[in-house]
C-alpha cells in the first residue's frame, strides 16, 4: 500500500522535474519547483511509514516551510530583479 503511494509520488516528482528542466518560461520552472517541493514533503511522510519508523515527520514540516520561503524569495527576485522570463 505504501509502495503504491511511494511510486505515485516518485512518478510525479519525475514529471515535475522534467518540467523544471525544460522550462520554457521562468514561471513554468518556478511552478514545477514548487510542486516538486510539495512532493518531497509527501515523499518524506510516506517514506517514514514505508521504512517502519514514522517518527521523523518534523522533517516534512521543515520542507513545507523552506519550500514556501524559497518560492517567495524567487518570486520577489522575479518581480524586482528584472528577470528575463524566457
Amino acid at each position, binding site marked *: 500500500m505504501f509502495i503504491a503511494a511511494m511510486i505515485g509520488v516518485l512518478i510525479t516528482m519525475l514529471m515535475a522535474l522534467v518540467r523544471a528542466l525544460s522550462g520554457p518560461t521562468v514561471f513554468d520552472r518556478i511552478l514545477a*519547483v514548487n510542486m516538486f517541493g510539495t512532493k518531497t514533503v509527501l515523499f518524506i511522510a510516506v517514506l517514514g511509514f*514505508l521504512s517502519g519508523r514514522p*517518527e521523523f515527520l*518534523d522533517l516534512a514540516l521543515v*520542507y513545507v516551510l*523552506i519550500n514556501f520561503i524559497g518560492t517567495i524569495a524567487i518570486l520577489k527576485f522575479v*518581480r524586482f530583479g528584472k528577470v528575463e522570463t524566457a
Partner: protein
Amino acid sequence: MIHVVDMTLLAFLALVAIAITRMTNLFATSVLTGVYSLLMACIFTVLDAVDVAFTEAAVGAGISTVLFLATLSLTTQREKPQRSPNWKALCVALLTGGALVYGTFDMPHFGDPQAPVHQHVGPHYIGVSPTQIGVPNMVTSVLASYRGYDTLGETAVIFTACMAVLLLLQHEKRRDEQSAVEEKPDKEAMEHAMILRVQSKFFIPLILLFGLYVQFHGDFGPGGGFQAGVIFAAGIILYSLVNGLDKARQIIPPNVLHGLVAFGLLLYAGTGLASLFMDGNFLQYRALAEEATHGEHIGILLIELGVGVTVATVMTSMFFSFSGRRRS
C-alpha cells in the same frame, strides 16, 4: 524497496546536476540548485541521516538559494555563452572520475556492517552514549558532548565567515541607504501582495514556534541548534521578503544582531569555561551538576542554545547585508 528508492533519487540528482551544468541562465540555475538540495535531503533521509537531511533542507534549499538569488540581483543573470564544451576540462574531469571509480572497487559495499567505518569509534558511541549521556538522539550527544571541541571550532568558523561577509558588504552602506530612502521609500515591500502579507502574519509565528520546538527537541528527535538556527533565520528572512528590509531592520537592529552573533559563541565557550572552573576539563559537562548525566543535559542544552543563537543571527545578518546592498 529502500534500495530502489535510493537509486531513483540518485538518478534524479544526476539529471539535475547535468542540467545545472548545461544551462547558461544563472537564475534558472539557482532555482535548480534548490531542487538539487531538496533531492539530496531526501536521499539523506533514505540513508537514515535524518539530522543531516534536516540541515540540508533548511540550509541548501532555503538559505543558499536566497543568497545565490541575492547575489544575482546584484550582478548578472546570464553566463557568457561558451564555445562548445571545454574539452580540456572535460578530459581532466573524466580522467579523475575514472581513477576515482577504479578506487571504489576496493570500497566496502553499500550498507555493509563489516565496513571499516563501523569498527572503530562509531559502535563505541552507539554503545556508550545512551547510559553515559542519557540523550536518545545519538547525533546530538556526539555533536555536543563527545565532539564538543569540534563543534566549537565549527561555530567559530561560522562566526568568522559572518565577520568576513560584513566586512566585505557593509562598506559604504550609510551613503547608499540614505540615497535609497530618499528615492523610493519602501520599494522592497510587496505592498500589493495582500494575500501574501495576511498569510505571512499567521505563518511567521508558526515558523518561529517550530524553530523553538526544533531547538529544544533536539535531544529526543532530529533537530538541534544548527537546524533551529536556520529555521529561525528563515522566518526572519520571510518577514523581510514580505514587509521589506527596513521594517525587518527596525525589529532586529543590526547592532543587537551583531551582538547576538558574538553572544552565541561566547555562551558556548563560557559553558566550557564554567565546567573548567567546576573541577572538570574544558567542555566536560558532567562537572556542571552533582549527577553526571544531569550535568551533560545542562551542558548540551546551553551549547545547543549558543549554536542556535549564533547560526540564526549569522544567517540573518548575512541575508541583511546581501539584500541591503543596492545595485551599483
